[in-house]
C-alpha cells in the first residue's frame, strides 16, 4: 500500500516536472539601447517598439510554441556601457540574439563581443561601417548614411542643381554622413562648395550659415545631423533670409522636427522611409500595409507619434522572429543563417534581401524623398 502510494506520487511528480519543462521554456532576446541620454530619441521609440512587439507575439502564442522574453538594458549611447551590457547579455542572461546599438559608437564597441560569442546581432545604427566590411554575426536594418547622401544628391541633380553647401554636426552621425557625402559627391555629379560644422549643443549657427551663404555659386544646402542641430539650422536659414533649397538627413525624420523648426520647415526635403507618409501612400504601394499597421499599433500603444527609428526596431524584430520560425529553432547559429537568407521581407524601411555579402539588404528605392508642406510630410513625385 505504502509502496504504491510512493510510486504514484513519484510518477505524478515526474509528470509535473515533465509538463512544467517545455511550458516554462522561454526564448531570451537581448537588447541594449540608448533609452536615456543624448541619443534617447533613437533609443526610446526603439525600446517601446520592441516591448510592444514582444507582448504582441506572446499574446499570439509565442514563437515555435515558446514565449519570448526581452532583456532590455539602457546604455545611454555610451560605447563602454554598451560593451558591458553586451557581455552581460551573452554571459549572464544567455540570450540567443540581440537587437540593439542605437548609435554607431555603441554598435562598433559591441561587435567583438557578439562575434566571439557567436550570437546574431541586429544593429539599429546608421553608419555604413557596421556592415561594410561584412561581419558574420552582424546585421543592420536602417539605411546607411551613404544611401541618404546618394538619395539627396539624386534629387538635387533632378532639380538641375549641382553646387552644395554642407553643414554637419560634429557628433558621430553627422561626421560619418559628412564623410560619406564627400565621398560620393563626385560620382553623383555634385560639387561641395562649402563645408561647415557645428557642435551638438550649439544654439546658433548663423556664423557657419553666413559663410555658406557667401560661398561662390552655392545652390543648395545639405545638413547632416540629428537632435536639436537641424531644427536650429533650419530656423537660422530662415532668419538669414537664405532662399536656397535645404535638405535634411534621415536623422530628423520625425514630427517633432516640424514642430521645432516651425514655419522655417516649409519646403525642406529629406530622405525617409515611407513610415512618415503612411496614410498618404497610394493603396497600390507594396509598403502601405506594413507601415500603416505599425504606425497605428505604435501610436495606440504609446500615445506618441510614430518615429522611423522605432521602425528600424520593428524591422529587426520581425526579421528575427521570421528567421526563428524558418529555422524552426532558437539556436543562435541556425537563427543567424536564417536571417542571412531573408528574402523579400517587407519592412518599414523597404524590401529587404539579405545575402552572405549584404547584411543590410536594402536598396535606394527603399528611401522616399519627402518634402514638408504646410507643416506636414508630403511625397515628392
Amino acid at each position: 500500500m505504502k509502496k504504491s502510494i510512493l510510486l504514484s506520487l513519484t510518477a505524478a511528480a515526474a509528470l509535473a516536472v515533465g509538463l512544467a519543462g517545455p511550458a516554462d521554456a522561454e526564448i531570451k532576446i537581448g537588447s541594449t539601447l540608448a533609452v536615456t541620454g543624448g541619443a534617447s530619441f533613437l533609443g526610446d521609440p526603439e525600446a517601446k517598439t520592441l516591448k510592444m512587439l514582444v507582448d504582441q507575439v506572446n499574446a499570439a502564442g509565442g514563437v515555435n510554441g515558446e514565449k519570448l522574453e526581452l532583456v532590455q538594458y539602457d546604455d545611454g549611447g555610451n560605447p563602454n556601457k554598451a560593451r558591458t551590457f553586451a557581455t552581460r547579455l551573452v554571459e549572464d542572461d544567455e540570450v540567443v540574439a540581440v537587437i540593439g546599438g542605437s548609435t554607431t559608437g555603441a554598435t562598433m564597441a559591441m561587435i567583438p563581443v557578439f562575434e566571439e560569442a557567436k550570437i546574431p546581432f541586429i544593429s539599429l545604427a546608421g553608419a555604413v561601417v557596421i556592415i561594410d566590411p561584412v561581419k558574420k554575426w552582424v546585421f543592420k536594418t536602417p539605411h546607411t548614411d551613404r544611401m541618404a547622401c546618394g538619395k539627396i544628391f539624386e534629387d538635387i541633380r533632378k532639380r538641375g542643381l549641382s553646387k552644395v553647401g554642407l553643414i554637419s554636426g560634429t557628433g558621430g552621425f553627422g561626421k560619418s554622413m559628412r564623410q560619406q557625402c564627400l565621398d560620393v559627391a563626385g560620382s553623383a555629379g555634385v560639387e561641395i562648395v562649402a563645408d561647415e560644422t557645428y557642435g551638438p549643443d550649439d544654439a546658433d549657427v548663423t556664423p557657419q550659415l553666413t559663410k555658406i551663404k557667401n560661398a561662390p555659386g552655392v545652390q543648395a544646402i545639405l545638413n547632416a545631423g540629428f537632435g536639436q542641430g537641424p531644427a536650429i539650422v533650419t530656423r537660422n536659414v530662415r532668419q538669414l533670409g537664405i532662399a536656397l533649397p535645404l535638405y535634411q538627413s534621415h536623422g530628423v525624420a520625425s514630427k517633432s522636427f516640424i514642430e521645432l523648426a516651425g514655419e522655417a520647415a516649409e519646403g525642406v526635403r529629406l530622405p525617409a522611409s515611407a513610415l512618415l507618409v503612411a496614410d498618404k501612400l497610394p493603396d497600390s504601394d507594396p509598403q502601405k500595409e506594413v507601415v500603416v499597421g505599425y504606425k497605428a499599433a505604435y501610436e495606440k500603444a504609446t500615445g506618441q507619434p510614430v518615429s522611423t527609428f522605432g521602425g528600424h526596431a520593428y524591422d529587426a524584430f520581425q526579421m528575427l522572429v521570421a528567421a526563428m520560425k524558418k529555422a524552426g529553432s532558437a539556436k543562435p547559429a541556425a537563427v543567424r543563417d536564417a536571417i542571412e537568407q531573408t528574402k523579400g521581407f517587407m519592412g518599414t524601411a523597404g524590401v529587404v534581401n539579405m545575402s552572405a555579402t549584404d547584411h543590410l539588404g536594402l536598396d535606394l528605392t527603399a528611401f522616399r524623398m519627402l518634402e514638408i508642406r504646410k507643416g506636414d510630410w508630403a511625397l515628392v513625385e
Partner: protein
Amino acid sequence: MSELLQFTFSGLTVGAVYALVALGFTIIYNASGVVNFAQGEFVMLGGMITVFAHAAGAPLPAAAALAVVATAAVGILLNKLAIERARGASVVTLIIITIGASIFLRGAAQLGFDKQLHRFPSFSGDDPIAIGGATILPQSLWMLFGAAVVFAGLYLFFTRSLTGKAVLATANNKLAAQLVGIDTDFVMALSFGLSAAIGALAGILATPITLTSYDAGTALALKGFAAAMLGGMGNPFGALVGGLLVGLIEAMTAGYLSSDYKDAAAFVVILAVLFAMPQGLFGKSAQERV
C-alpha cells in the same frame, strides 16, 4: 562688414545665455562659497516647466511665472536639504554633492516630463530685424535685455540694499555675520532661491532660440561655469562680461577660423587668461591663511 556684424549678433545671443547662467553661479558662490553644478538644471527647469504649463493651457506669461517660482522653490530645497547639511565640507565634496543634485534633477525631469526636444513661441515673433546687412531675432534682444536687467538688479541689490550686503557679509565670514544679527539661514535660502530664479529666467528667455530638453542643462552649466571663472568668480560684472566674451569668442572662431574648434577656442582663451591672471578678469585675489 555685415559678416562681422552677423557674427557679433550670434555671439551676443549665445553669450547672453551664458552670462545669465554665470550670474546664477555667482550669487550662490557669493553666499556660500559653493559652485553649484546643478545651475544648468535650473535653466532647464525654467524652460521645461514653461513648456509643459503652456501646453497644458496656461498663457505663456503665467506659465513662465510659474516656472520661475517653482524653480526658485527647487533651489531653496536644494539648499535646505543638501548644502546646509554639508556645512564645512571640502570643495571637492561640495562639488560632488551639487553634481549628484544635477543628476537627480535630470533624472526627475526625464520622468516628470519626457525625453523630447521642446520649445514655445518667441515673445515677439520670429521675424528677423535687419541691421547693417545682418539679422538678429527679437528674442535675442529679449535675452540681452534680460541679462542687462538681471545684472543691474544684482548690482543694486549687492551694493545698495541691506539684504544684499547681508549676503556679502555672510559669504565673507559666516560667524561674524551671525554675530551682528544677520539671519544667515535666511540669507542662504534667499541666495539659492534667487540664483535658481535667475537660472529659470535664462531658460525661459533662451528656449525659443535654443530649444530645451531634459538634458539641456549640462552643456550650459559647463559654459556658464567657464564664463564665471573667466570673469572672476563672485563678481557679477565679471559674470556678465565673461558670458558675453565666451559667446563672442565662439562666434568669431566659427566665423573666421574653424567651426570644428570653436568650443575649444573659448577654453583656450580661458586657460590663457587664468595663467596670466589666476583670479580671472575681475576677481578678487584670495588670501590664504595658515
